[in-house]
């Protein structure tokens, strides 16, 4: 999380069109009230309330209604943040990926930061036929690799999307797992394999 940048707020106001100074005042006031209303506990520090451009610009109803220029800036900034593995290998172990997709722990003030975080993919996505307990906030990913193949371009897209979903779709609801340090490079490789490996339950 970066520090709040007042210039960005001005930029948002100029580009936002529909925002009025009053709206901005309320947003600033809401932020101050929130800073006073939360306390740091465990790994959940107060700087989690500092927003980057994607977070502040997407804090509107509905978040996808963000101005086109701002959306383009968000996508460009986030695309530049993606770090591909130095060894060039994007596919890990889909079995490990399945465990990561099932696990919802990590980053909560109640979680031990020593334990690895999960991706909690099933909370929002259908992914395999055998797991019937899936959410619907995101699209179904059933047959993800079967439909798209396993080319290097698809591998890079899949890895990049998990690393930073807002590089491809500004204001996406999906967490930026690599960008925000939720998952490690090895975990994102495992999830990429879960989505693309022909033997994975996703592609049965």
């Amino acid at each position, binding site marked *: 999380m970066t520090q709040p940048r007042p210039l960005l707020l001005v930029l948002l106001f100029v580009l936002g069109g529909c925002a009025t100074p009053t709206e901005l005042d309320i947003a600033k006031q809401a932020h101050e*009230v*929130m800073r006073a*209303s939360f306390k*740091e506990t465990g790994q959940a520090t107060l700087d989690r*309330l500092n927003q980057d451009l994607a977070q502040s610009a997407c*804090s509107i109803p509905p978040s996808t209604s963000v101005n086109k220029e701002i959306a383009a800036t968000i996508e460009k900034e986030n695309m530049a943040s993606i770090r591909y593995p130095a060894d060039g290998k994007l596919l890990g172990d889909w079995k490990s990926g399945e465990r990561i997709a099932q696990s919802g722990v990590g980053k909560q003030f109640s979680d031990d930061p020593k334990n690895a975080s999960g991706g909690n993919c099933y909370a929002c996505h259908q992914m395999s036929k055998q797991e*019937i307990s899936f*959410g619907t906030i995101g699209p179904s990913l059933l047959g993800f690799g079967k439909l798209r193949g396993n080319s290097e371009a698809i591998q890079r897209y899949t890895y990049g999307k998990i690393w930073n979903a807002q590089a491809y779709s500004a204001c996406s609801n999906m967490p930026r797992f690599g960008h925000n340090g939720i998952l490690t490079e090895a975990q994102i490789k495992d999830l990429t394999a879960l989505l693309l490996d022909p033997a994975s339950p996703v592609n049965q």
Partner: protein
Amino acid sequence: MTVFRTLAIAGLLLGYAAVTSAQSAVDEIAKYRQQLQDGNPADLWEARGEDVWKQKRGPKGVSLERCDLGLGPGVVTGAYAQLPRYFSDADRVMDLETRLVHCMVTLQGMSLADATKRPFGSGTNRSDFEALAAWITAESRGTKMNVSISHPKEAQAYRLGEKMFYFRGGPHDFACATCHGESGKRIRLQDLPNLTEKAGAQLGYTTWPAYRVSQGELRTFQWRLYDCFRQQRFPELKFTSEASIALTTFLAYNANGAAFNAPAIKR
């Protein structure tokens, strides 16, 4: 309580075993929720809450029976359906729990620290707020939600609450709206009310407090916000904080017109 919970969970597991598709799982869970309605252990919290209300407590040795929840000193029936509201004696907007703290301090003479030492209960460490909220909210069951934002401070709380509802932050970029901004969505198999629309806000707001089967505890609306923010990966929401009151004002006002229907029972 433990037996009740074990039976309920066993029932849910049996339901799982019998199903073959996501749709039938959803149907089974709807059935499970229906069956839960037959006996709500919230009764136990309600009974204790009435006792706590009437007990002489604190340094001044008086009960809460002169506490003004907005409809006059001691008037409990229907009061929750008009909360949060502006209180001129405190010159601020208060939700139920904040008002109870105010009464514990001003009427009973408790220190703020003593009054707020146990917002949420756990097993034998019981919370007076959960008991009081169970009883007081039950006294509004069937009453139409009628929250005002006509006072400038109420209007301000509503506007701040609305901003906070859409505020994205933390390592996961989550806002309240991430999960509660669209209709017909679920997390895993849990249906999510769309709190940005009348019907969803009414359904969501009027069914808290609730007895949570999975926890064996009765939980208040303050707890609901606290635990949503935990899952949003935010820092810890302070009990009766200004943000909690603002969000509650936003959500309660959006539920106006619906009959209040809690304490409820949830998985």
